[in-house]
Each structure stands twice: as structure tokens, then as C-alpha cells.
């Protein structure tokens, strides 16, 4: 459902497993609500145009950019950010693999990349490498850790095997 929040009418949604409500204009991009109202700094501003993936979150199981998503569009829905992937202090295996394989340099793009990969693996537990590459197409990385990230995701997915 799409809320029609305005001043005084809070937008309610489930955020990282917890009920959440914010009282902001309906057209406020979700990114700024997450970062500045709810203190979740994991989604990062990269372009504001939905072109780079740095701000990606999972909405009802689907990864998408939050910089160009009005908060009212997530009313009643389930939003997962990078902060919501670790469970009971245990890192998501994707997070663990990225750290263990040193699959990062500056790391600014990593939360968006992990979000894309998590949503993809949840929908496709036994992907091939081409599928993983396609799922990460929306994410820009400038330090050039692409191959390390791919190896980390392959390690986590059941597809781990000889590289193509």
C-alpha cells in the first residue's frame, strides 16, 4: 500500500525487523529518513539518481535504491538495511566473506553491494557467476575490488567452484 503521509501523519513500516514510524512529508526520499532521522548510516548517498547503488536497501525482498524512493512508498512494507543483516551479533556470511577476503578498499560502495547480493542470493540460492554479476550491475565501485567481491559472494553461494 502507498501511504499519503503529510505533516502529522506518520509513515509506518518494518525496519530491520522492528516497527518504525517517521513523521516527515510523504515525498521525503527514504535515504535521508534512514540516515538522518533513524540514524542508519549504512545506506550512503552516491548520486541521488538511482544510478550507483550506494544507497540500496531491500524492500519486501527486492533490492532497490533509497535515494529516489519516497518514504511513503514503503508504508506498510518491510525494509532491510545493511545494519539489519547481522543476526544476534553474527555477521551475515556475505559480510564475513567480504572482510575475510579483503574485498574492499575505501568501502563506501560495500553496503549497497552487500544488499544487492543478499537480495539476489535470497531469491536465487544457487546462482551462476553470470547471475551474480548481473545482480551487481546497479552498483558502482571505483576502487576496483569487483573480482574480490565476486569471489566473496561465490564463496557464500552454493555456486562456489572453479571460476569460469
Amino acid at each position, binding site marked *: 500500500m502507498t501511504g499519503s503521509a503529510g505533516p502529522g501523519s506518520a509513515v509506518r513500516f518494518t525496519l530491520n525487523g522492528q516497527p518504525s514510524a517517521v513523521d516527515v512529508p510523504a515525498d521525503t526520499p527514504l535515504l535521508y529518513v534512514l540516515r538522518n532521522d533513524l540514524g542508519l548510516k*549504512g545506506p550512503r548517498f552516491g548520486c541521488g539518481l538511482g*544510478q550507483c547503488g550506494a544507497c540500496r536497501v531491500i524492500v519486501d525482498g527486492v533490492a532497490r535504491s533509497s535515494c529516489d524512493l519516497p518514504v511513503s512508498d514503503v508504508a506498510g512494507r518491510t525494509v532491510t538495511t545493511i545494519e539489519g543483516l547481522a543476526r544476534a551479533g553474527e555477521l551475515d556470511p556475505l559480510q564475513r566473506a567480504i572482510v575475510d577476503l579483503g574485498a574492499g*578498499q575505501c568501502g*563506501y560502495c560495500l553496503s549497497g553491494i552487500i544488499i544487492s547480493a543478499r537480495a539476489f542470493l535470497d531469491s536465487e540460492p544457487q546462482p551462476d557467476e553470470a547471475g551474480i554479476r548481473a545482480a551487481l550491475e546497479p552498483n558502482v565501485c571505483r576502487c576496483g575490488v569487483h573480482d574480490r567481491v565476486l569471489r566473496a559472494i561465490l564463496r557464500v553461494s552454493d555456486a562456489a567452484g572453479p571460476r569460469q
Partner: protein
Amino acid sequence: MGATVVPDRVDAWLRFEPDGSVWIRTGKVELGQGIHAALEIVVADELDVELDRTRVAPVDTATSRDEGVTAGSRSIEESGETLRRVAATARRALLAVAAARLHVGVDELRVEAGVISTPAGDSCTYATLVVDGALRDLLVDPEASPKPSAARRIIGSSPVRQDLLRKVTGASAFLQDLELPGMLHGRIVRPPAPGSRLRSVDDAAIRSLPGVVALVRDGDFLGVIAEREEQAIAALRRAGSAAHWSDAPRLAATSDPRYLLALPAETIVVRDRRDGPTPPRVARTIEAEYTRPHIAHGSVGPSCAVARFDSAGLEVWTHSQGIFRLRHELALVMGLSETNVRVHHREGAGCYGHNGADDVALDAALLARGRAGRPVRVQWMREDEFAWEPYGPAMLIRLSADLAADGSIIEWRHDLWSHGHETRPSQGGRPADQSALLAARHLARPFVVPLAGRPRAASSGGRRNAEPYYRFPRDRVVDHYVAESPLRVSALRSLGAHANVFAIESFVDELAAATGADPVELRLRHLDDVRAREVIGRAVAMAGPRPAHSGDGDLLRGRGLGFARYKNSAAYAAVVVDVELDTEIHVRRAWGAIDAGMVISRDGLANQAEGGIVQAVSWTLREAVSTDASGVTSRDWDAYPTLRFPDAPAVEIDVIDRPDVPPVGAGEAMAGPTSAAVANAVADASGVRLRDLPLTRERFIAAAG
């Protein structure tokens, strides 16, 4: 190059805490390259403390050393080597005190995890000795001998980078995440193009928007401040119609780097080795021209700063590469004394050189003035970053070689056309009416824009790696320095080395093809440096058997090599790539061998080399700043495409460790060799030689005729 040790105090570099931790004070800043992790390894190893007990203290102009700009791959060879000697000095002094206290000889002591113990089991800790004054007034001994390589425990290994944990869990990790009490959000309304003047602005239309706190105008500089970030962005958008600008002067065409040939140039002979014995008769001369366009740094995280003005002065949080230089220029432009400006470094997204980091700090300072102590955070929009950052400059290179009848190279000539590659803020090195900071040129009392300077040394600016590392009987290198640049330019990873090495290594392959020589063999024939020969040999060996040229259907395959010693004095790098050509050029695999002397962090070095290759593949196949007469047109990721995951090559790196050779930086070594390797692989696959970067499908089709 040696370490830059000055006789100063050990406690200016290292602070031993009672809990056993050791804080490292350096002025080198973390740019995502992992330099702080590397410096922690150096100190932990030399002192024999646990790696997780060493930490680099926050870098800030009030408390940190001024170690200049963090750039040029110099941090390991400068700060790393200095810290090794600082730690060696400290260790020697601490062990001497411990030996006296424990009544044994120094040689009988062993150190583990910061605990010094005797064979009999008596012990004391570094921390207690330091509390008791063991390091008081101790000066760094530049001759202090660090551990021999056999005694190193951590140096040369691959510890996990702990900062990645914060970065994968969404913790506040970047300056962009900094939040200060009462913080406001600002955005800058830039002119539609450089040179456009602000005629008028409908203040009321902007001020009446929700949350808008102020509109700041100073000449052609216009900024909006709001309580909330999205309100500042909405005000910025509204200003698009509320601000009226004069037409900008038409921009000279820059998309084809041959524009450089039409501009006035100062011709400087960098080297001329054409004396000596009379050469054999020239049988043929081969010439070729190579170009590189302007390339954007294109950081994935747009530049950001937070500034606060109060009675104590100006305080700024920045991801600048040079906080002391930034402090100088902020003071200059804001009319303050440097003692009233404090600049804190916080990590930002990777910058790969001089991008908008310094500029946005002035933007934030200009907006914070008059806010009664409330901090203002400014983050550039994507368009600000792409349209206003100082690009890596376009270059043009002409190479020619005279060949003898037997195909041997008699003479090599290299002519390059380039602007300067450096317009960073300066620390008093320029006239006081000049500032490099972007907004300074837009103020009512505008500062003069400094030119990207003439290279000062053989390895700087456009000349970097212009001199061939190969030994030819005769050679000449000429720099045609073009002072005036139509676009704003400054330092991009590897400076002129990228284009020079691209040209040199492409041309070597062209000469090999023209004379029927093997490209690897031709290189080795002109290289007598064993380390150079070894990286080439290792990269070629790693790549293994060559792929068959033709694949399924119309698919063509090819392999190419590129080599350079960065700056002709730093890391050795060789890259082999395999390409596939279908309707596009794809780099499928890459192998890199690197020799940067002593290895501090094996995986850190491999990661830098790997990232350097992948970024250079992106430059080579995709990247170019585009312009038309009205200005820069590549203002978002659609108009400035980069290499993405579907097309990223698989990469393998061979790290050569030379534990007894001083370490050098490695972050910039791979760029030139990679671009050449790709062009050489395309030629190998198809017979089509591409000499203009980026190597696009359109250029391939045009060249294939």
C-alpha cells in the same frame, strides 16, 4: 629513496598508553588505500606488540605532524620508513631500561605482546617503563636499525583489515556520516558553466521553502542552508529557476585531446641522449600518436565537509589529502589567521587524487560563517562532482623510432603535450591573491585561479614516466607544456605516467609487429634491470598458454602485455590481459606482477595492484569527460560510464617480496601498463591498433575500416 627522518622526539610519533596500546601519530591520511593498516603493521612488528593494540590517532592540524599531502604513493616510503626507525629507537631504549631493571643483558630479553621477559621469567611491560619515563626526551635516531627481515612477524603477512568490519556493518565509517549537535545542511548553487555570472536571484522564492534557514550569496557564490538535508536539496532545485545567470563564454572543444596542439606550449627538452658514436644507417622510421582524454576521479561518495564557526574560530572536518595546505587556504580565503583554523581529517570515499574534497571544505566554511556556532554539513551532489572537480588532464604523445636494416632500434623519440597535473591548495607557495579552492573564484572579491604548474622535476606532472626505462642507443624526450587549460585539471592517480606508459608500451608492441619480433623478447632485449625482467617474466608465466585467436562464431581473442617501473624509480609492474572482442571489447582476465621492495601487507599490496588494474581497465575502455560549447556534459553515471560488475575481469596478482629492499608505494604502478596491455591485446586479437583512449567500439569499427 630514503626515509625523511628529522631529529625529533619519539613521543611526537608514538604514544604508549597504560593499557598497552600504542597510538601512532602521523600526518598521512587514510584514503581507503589501507595506509593506516600498513603503518600499524610496521609499528606492531618493530615493537613486538599485538597488531590490534596499535592504532593511528585521528589526523588533525592541531595535534598531528605535517607530513604534507598523502599522495604520489609516497606514504610507505616516507612515513612507513620513518616509523620503522622511530619504533626501533623506542624499542632499543625500552629494552635498555628493562635490562637494567631486571638485571640481565639486553640480549637475554625477549618481547612478546608488549611484555618484556627474562629467561628466568621476570617481566615488565612497555607501558610501565614508559610511565616511569623510559622514553622521556628521547630523540629519534635516524640510524636506528630496525629488525632484520628474519625476525619480522607481521610485516609481509596478510592481516585482515579491521576497518572493513565497520564498513560492511553500516557503522559510521566516513566523514559523510558525521553528525554534530545542531548541524544544518547546505548545498551550493553552481553557475551553469564556468565564467557564468550571477545576475539576480529571487531570494523570497527560496527562503519561503520549508526548512530553509538562509541563502548565502557572495558575488557569484550562492549557497542554501536548511534544517534537513532533503530540504537543502529542494532549495537547490528551486534555485535552478530562481537564480539568473549570464551566458558563459563558449568552451573550446576538448573532447579530442588534439586540441592541445592548437594551444601555446612551452617546449622543454627533458632528456637528449643523441650524442655518442655515429649510429648505423636508418632503414626505416616508425611514428605513432596516442591520446588520453580528461578522466574524472568520479569518487563514488561525493565530496563532503562539515564546518563550524564560533568564537574560537573555524573548525572543519574534511577528507582532504592535505589538511595543512587546506588550513592555509581556508584561512587565506576566509580572512582568518591559521591559528584560528583547525582542520580534522575523517575518511571519505576513495578519491584517487585531487578531487572536490578541498573545495567542499571552503563551501561549508562559507555557509557556516554567520550561523552562530551551528555546524553546516555540505555534500556535493553527483552533478557537482562530475561537472566541477579538477579532472586528470588530457594528454597527447607522439613517438617515433628509427630502425636499422636488421630491425634493431637506433633512436627513440618521445614528444608529449600536457597541461600541468597539480592545482592542489598550497601552503604559501603562491601569490596571496590566488586560491585553488573552487568557490574562491566565485566570490565578490574573487581569487585568481592558479595554473596547473610547469613540472618541476623529471618525474612530475605530464613528464612522469616519459623517459623510457628501456635502454636504446639514442633517445630524446620533449615536454610541450601547455599552461592554459580550458577545463579545471589536477592530480589523478599516476599523473602523466598513465598516458606516457600507455603510449610507450603500445609503441613497443607496434615496433615488435613491424619487425616481426616477439613483444616480450623485444622488451627484454632492452632491459638490463633484473627486477624489471622478473616482473615481466612472472606476469607472462602466470598467464600461461596463449588463448586461441578465434573462438566461437565471430569472437576474437587476444593477449597483451604492459610494463613500467613507476616514476622510473619506484615499484615495478607488469600486466598481462586477455581480451575478447564480440560487439564490444571485453577484458576477461588480467595477471599482474608487482615488486615494491619489502612487502608490509601482502594482501594490502595485492589489493592495491588489483584495484589499480581494474580501475585502469575502466579508464581504458569506458572513461572520458565529455564537453560541448556550453560546458561539461558528462554529469552523471549514465553520461560517464565506468566498468561495472558484468564486465569486470578476473584478476590474479603475484607479489614479489624483497625483504631487504626499502619499500615503495604501489597504488599507482598498474595504471599505464594495464591500458597498454589492453590495447596490445586488442591488436593481437584483431590486427587493429587503437591509439586513442578510451578504446571504444566506435573507434574499433572506424579503425578496422
